């Protein structure tokens, strides 16, 4: 965004300190707007007609460097772009790049159904909630408008996920658009040859569009032309190439575009970027399964980290998706808010005085992992969450944030000893070296659990049943 100081923003706020926005003062609200932790519409007063001018001005001042574009409608709509920084530590990255998976208009019905359902229903538990996939990209391989329209219809009937309609043939695109015109799909793509025809479609259907050219001069010119025509919901495709020097140039084009937009203020390219890891299969087709997985994964890593705002995939093997969704989540986690949970004593299932007492740290990932392992294995137990400044077990043992003194404090504060009659505490395997000193400090018997809580069920069989 263009402004850096809360004062610049404050000047346009009502200045009544009415607290409606949840902040004590307008000034406090202004700093929340700057770091993008609150949105302008929370200030009720400024929505009043009398502040129309100020509102417009603020909207413009606060708009992100990279345009934010919405694809799809309703709950499943995705936000693309809207980024403000080149490095996540400078603020945070905002909108996780939606992951789109392809189907084609020459696939048979069964394959389309399987792929679409798989993508729509995919989920993976992580840090307290589920990671999911976001979009379906429909490629026209037939180049036949009728076939394409049929395929779009099929997919539309199968899923609520937002769609990308892919063809360089405007007639094909139009046939698809007719089917889903009220769903706000993304059109892929206008290129050097077809852009006028595609522009007519975009104007008619009022949907966002991808501009494609691996030549950055041409890409910027296309973008400028579309903006000039009044169409500014644009996504840029600077071309994804799978290997060698072409891969190098791909990586560099993504970086150049984003740097130019954010650091050099080049408005012509201040749009989201689409990456196409699916293109890996142009070279890996026919190679063995693992090679195919790897070539698409390399593009996924490069384009997730360096500035892809929307990615299109071909490979739906579960072992290919698994690391990709974690990388995306990690890179788009807000570095300003350490992922931590409240410390305390928690009941897992319905524990009684004979149930084990486990200990972990308040790093959110650790906590949720242990919790879900205990619960999904029906292990009735107490979980003591110690405040380690939100650092995981291994690092906090090494760094001293988890120590016997802290453990003792937590046991006293939560009256954990009174809940159990065996006076035994189970430390995580990665905190084994604290076991002696923790026994001394707390006067409890200390057992060392497994290094991964996924093995607690097995550990219970070997170490707890016999004991109880």
């Amino acid at each position, binding site marked *: 965004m263009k402004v850096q100081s809360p004062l610049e923003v404050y000047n346009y706020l009502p200045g009544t300190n009415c607290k409606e926005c949840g902040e004590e003062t307008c000034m406090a609200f202004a700093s929340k707007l700057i770091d993008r932790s609150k949105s302008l519409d929370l200030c009720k007063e400024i929505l009043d007609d009398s502040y129309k001018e100020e509102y417009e001005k603020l909207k413009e001042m606060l708009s992100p460097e990279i345009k934010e574009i919405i694809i799809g409608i309703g709950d499943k709509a995705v936000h693309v772009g809207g980024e403000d920084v080149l490095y996540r530590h400078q603020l945070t990255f905002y909108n996780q790049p939606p992951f789109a998976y392809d189907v084609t208009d020459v696939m048979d019905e069964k394959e389309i159904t399987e792929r679409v359902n798989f993508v729509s229903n995919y989920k993976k538990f992580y840090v307290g909630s589920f990671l999911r996939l976001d979009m379906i990209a429909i490629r026209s391989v037939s180049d036949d408008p009728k076939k394409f329209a049929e395929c779009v219809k099929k997919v539309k009937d199968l899923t609520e996920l937002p769609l990308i309609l892919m063809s360089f043939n*405007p007639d094909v695109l139009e046939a698809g658009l007719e089917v889903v015109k009220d769903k706000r799909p993304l059109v892929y793509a206008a290129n050097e040859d077809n*852009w006028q025809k595609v522009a007519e479609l975009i104007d008619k259907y009022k949907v966002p569009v991808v501009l494609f050219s691996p030549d950055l001069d041409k890409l910027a010119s296309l973008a400028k032309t579309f903006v000039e025509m009044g169409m500014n919901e644009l996504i840029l495709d600077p071309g994804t190439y799978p290997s060698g020097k072409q891969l190098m140039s791909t990586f560099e084009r993504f970086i150049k575009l984003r740097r130019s937009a954010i650091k050099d203020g080049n408005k012509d390219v201040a749009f989201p970027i689409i990456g196409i890891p699916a293109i890996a299969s142009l070279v890996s087709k026919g190679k063995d399964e693992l090679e195919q997985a790897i070539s698409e994964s390399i593009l996924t890593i490069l384009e997730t980290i360096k500035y892809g705002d929307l990615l299109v995939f071909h490979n739906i093997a579960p072992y290919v998706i698994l690391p990709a969704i974690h990388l995306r989540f990690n890179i788009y986690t807000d570095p300003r808010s350490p992922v931590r949970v409240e410390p305390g004593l928690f009941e897992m299932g319905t524990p009684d005085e004979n149930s084990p007492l486990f200990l972990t740290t308040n790093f959110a990932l650790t906590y949720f992992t242990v919790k879900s392992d205990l619960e999904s294995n029906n292990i009735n137990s107490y979980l003591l969450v110690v405040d380690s400044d939100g650092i995981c077990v291994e690092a906090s043992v090494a760094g001293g944030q988890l120590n016997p003194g802290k453990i003792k404090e937590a046991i006293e504060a939560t009256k954990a000893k009174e809940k159990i009659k065996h006076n035994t505490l189970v430390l995580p395997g990665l905190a084994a070296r604290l076991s002696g000193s923790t026994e001394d400090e707390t006067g409890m018997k200390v057992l060392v659990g497994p290094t991964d809580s996924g093995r607690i069920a097995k550990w219970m069989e070997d170490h707890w049943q016999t004991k109880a």
Partner: protein
Amino acid sequence: MDKMTQLLKLLENTDTIELNEFRMDFEELELNIMPAIQQVVQTAQRQAQQAEIVREAILAEEFKPPIYNYPGEVAEVQLGAGTRKPVFLGGQKALYRFEEPQPNPPVVTFDVFDIPMPGLPRPIREHFEDVMEHPGDWAKKAVKDFGANMVTIHLIGTGPKVMDKTPQQAAAAIEEVLQAVDVPIVIGGSGNPEKDPEVLEKAAEVAEGERCLIASANKDMDWERIGNAAKKYGHNILSWTQLDMNNQRELNRKLLKVVEMPRDRIVMDPTTAALGYGLDYAYTNMERIRLAALGGDDELNFPMSSGTTNAWGAREAWMKESPMPEDSEWGTRDFRGPLWEIYTGLPLALAGVNLFMMMHPLSVRVLKETTQALLGMIEGEKVDISNWIKEV
């Protein structure tokens, strides 16, 4: 074509009609098709109100590649001397290749242990099962069969709770590895803060003059003694801190000021957390360190090393299947493991890491190939993507 046919032709395609093509003599037209004409006119007018489709693309200004100057540069460190073929790390003067040619592509050092390591994940064990009894053979296999640039000998067996091997026994393992291969080596302890200084000191002594990387000096143990040993016997030192750039700066400063380690003999390990288990902290910490180095911070401008092997600690890398019944299938773990290592290493390469400690032969190959491709060192298969939509 008569006017009528022309018009009908136009009508077929009213959606894409262009205003400037719509020039005809209305008077000549039959009345009975007037409604259709009106529709065409309306469509055309509507389009005219909304947008004028221009005929020629408007040229943007020539795209200026965003190239910057950096006041600082990363020190260049030589690993290996004496009977070793040397390898160089660091020397970067810019963030990206398109700004300034990048010297010294990333280097991979294979993990080798002084004991057979029954706990290693199966996808790794299966490659080394036959050599695990002998660190020399293990090292040889890593170099000969899997193209290791370097080898790390981890003296795990010296851990009091592992096998409590003596420093002399550790020294024997090192001599074995030095005999077996001629690549530079990294010497790692067991992580025991009481014993490591003694073990690493002895190790440094037997490898005198080979310019190894001693891993590591960290604030948890007697870093001064370890640093002094590295300095005295002509080695490099690995400065290891836990995900904290300020601590890293502080430890580097101590090595520079107290140990008086030369600037070209320090490598940093700012800690690698696996994908899904804190990779975001590791990534950002390293990215910030590299930006600081290029920005002129002379207490952080050393090459970086990553313990990428940590990726194998992630349950997604090694567990047979998800312990969560609600999860979708995870897929075969034979593939998940190496991919997890790639997904941990490659992001950190983008953050600036110069040396990777890794375990799986496939991950090693992919990491090397990809980082070299990004530096323009691999020609690769050229493809035309102008029609990719149909060809994928």
